[in-house]
């Protein structure tokens, strides 16, 4: 099983879209105001994962070494 296969991707995307649609309907209790914007958390999730992997990708060359780097 590989989530990059298109049938899985389509399935997950379907669920995500369904949740976004539901989010418009369900009443919210925003604490700060802007967290009441529809699909705010969807955007947050998407960007959060995207950014953290991106940062990791950028700094990778600085901190990655061969497996036998520490000879102990």
């Amino acid at each position: 099983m590989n989530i990059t296969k298109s049938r899985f991707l389509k399935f997950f995307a379907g669920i995500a879209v369904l949740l976004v649609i539901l989010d418009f309907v369900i009443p919210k209790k925003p604490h700060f105001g802007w967290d009441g914007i529809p699909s705010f958390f969807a955007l947050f999730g998407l960007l959060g994962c995207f950014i953290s992997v991106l940062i990791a990708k950028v700094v990778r060359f600085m901190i990655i070494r061969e497996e036998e780097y520490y000879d102990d």
Partner: protein
Amino acid sequence: MISFISPLVVFFIGALLMLFLKNTVRLVCCVIVCIAAFMCLLNIPQGVYPIVEFWGYTLILRFDALSLPFAYAFVIATLIGMIYSHHLKSSKEHFWGFVYAASVMGAVFAGDLITLFVFWELMTIAAMFIIWASKTKAAQGAGFRYLLVHLFGGLCLLAGIIMKVHYTGSIEFGYVGMDLGIASWLMLIGFMVNAAIPPLHAWLTDAYPKASITGIIFLSAFTTKAAVYVLARAFAGTELLIILGAVMMVYPLIFIVLENDLRRVLSYSLINQIGFMIVAIGIGTPLAINGAVAHAFVHIIYKALLFMSIGAVMYRVGSSKVTDLGGLYRTMPLTMIFCVIGALSISAFPLFSGFAAKSVIVSAVAEEHLTYVWLTIMFVSAGAIYWIKVPYFAFFNKDSGKRPKEAPLNMKVAMGIAALICVVVGILPSVLYDILPYSMNYMPYELSNVMKQLLLLSFVFLAFSLWLKSGYYPKERRSEILDLDWIYRKLAPIVVSFAGKGVLWVYRRLNYIFLDWLPSMLIWMSKSPALALKIWFSKLVMYFMPFGWEEARSAIEKAEKEYPANVLPHWSMSSSIAFMIILLTLYLVDYYFL
């Protein structure tokens, strides 16, 4: 008296029994000991109990609503760990496991600073032996480094304790706060080392992944949670902890993405998760403290579950590295299900235990209107992808071609118990909320709360699969990701060896001057001091001569060659005596007339 120290006593007795028992008898004994300890905990009336007099101080144990939830979780973790390590031939890990559990309970129940310190250090020693039990060369080194780092922390704590006792005159362990100046700081640093707060965290990701698959269950459960407890007790409401906790949540994110060893990924996620608890302790309201305790409780269980499932994979395949794994769901379906339950719990998916605890912390942050902290928590919930990475790369992804057997029965039972607790706490959070230090009327299952978590997690999952699909996700390869332990594993040896070279050079110079050149020169001179002085004087004069160098040099060389054979004739015994008489006369003149 025996009734209220019994949870500790029971565990110490258990440790002794481990020295003599083997196989099934050992397992039965472990289970009985854990159940007995749990019954003791349930039956203890809350309160403070003096134990012994020590140097004029009364040592006390304290059982209250803050310490008991931690103790429950420790007993459950011990039970799970003991069942999980049933297959081991040697009882070493069982013995040290019980000592470790007893000392961590002692630290949590300590009502005074002396008791706390004693159990604190015992904890370090037991943990070190558990790390060493995996018997690899890497674990040996890591165990030593663990000991050194924790001795540093322990010494800071001891210094802080001594100063605090000096200031306040009491050894009672309660709220400390930051008002005691350097004493507060020293105690905080001592606690920070054990809580693995950056920059003092590197011992954790260094040592834990090198422990055995069984030892890591105890390690992941005890030391850091005891530190969370003491921080909640002594530093609740310290604003500094909010910042430290936020750093602690964010710092591991890139390591979680890059690390190849899944046990190291889980170790980083451990740091990340403790960050949530530290933030909550920093806020310090009753709701926040409840959140921290609840999170510590559920975290002990689901982190043990995740380590156990990856441990089972390692037991069968022999590796926990992403590059060696993949597609294992075919032959290890049960382990996969347990791992997914652990992952859903740690990601705070609704109906799993993490959700019940994390919602409390998030609500506590929102109630205090800490906007940036709240945003950080949300960002970290989205960015910490270990909950996808661990099950996905181990059990799904590309097929590694490996077809290992399902985990042994004892491992399945241990994982099953942990998974059951995760699900039960997730579905019935009131079970957990009832044992928390402050009573609260909190309901995590509000539609809006569930919805926001589902949206967040589903889009994180989507973003992750898009990263993989695009092919730009950082390629997994066999590697070592550097962290701050680089400072004492790589930089310090280099610095020391350079410094050593300098010291050695100075030593050699001094050695040559004082033990070689100077004595031989003195010996040479003493053969005929006057002649030697004459030769040196001629050399000195030679440098200032405008001409006649060649003649002078050959004359000096001739004199050096003949030295000391031709002692000057007029420097005889009589002239020496005459010289001394003159000196004496001068002395007498000086004494009597001047």
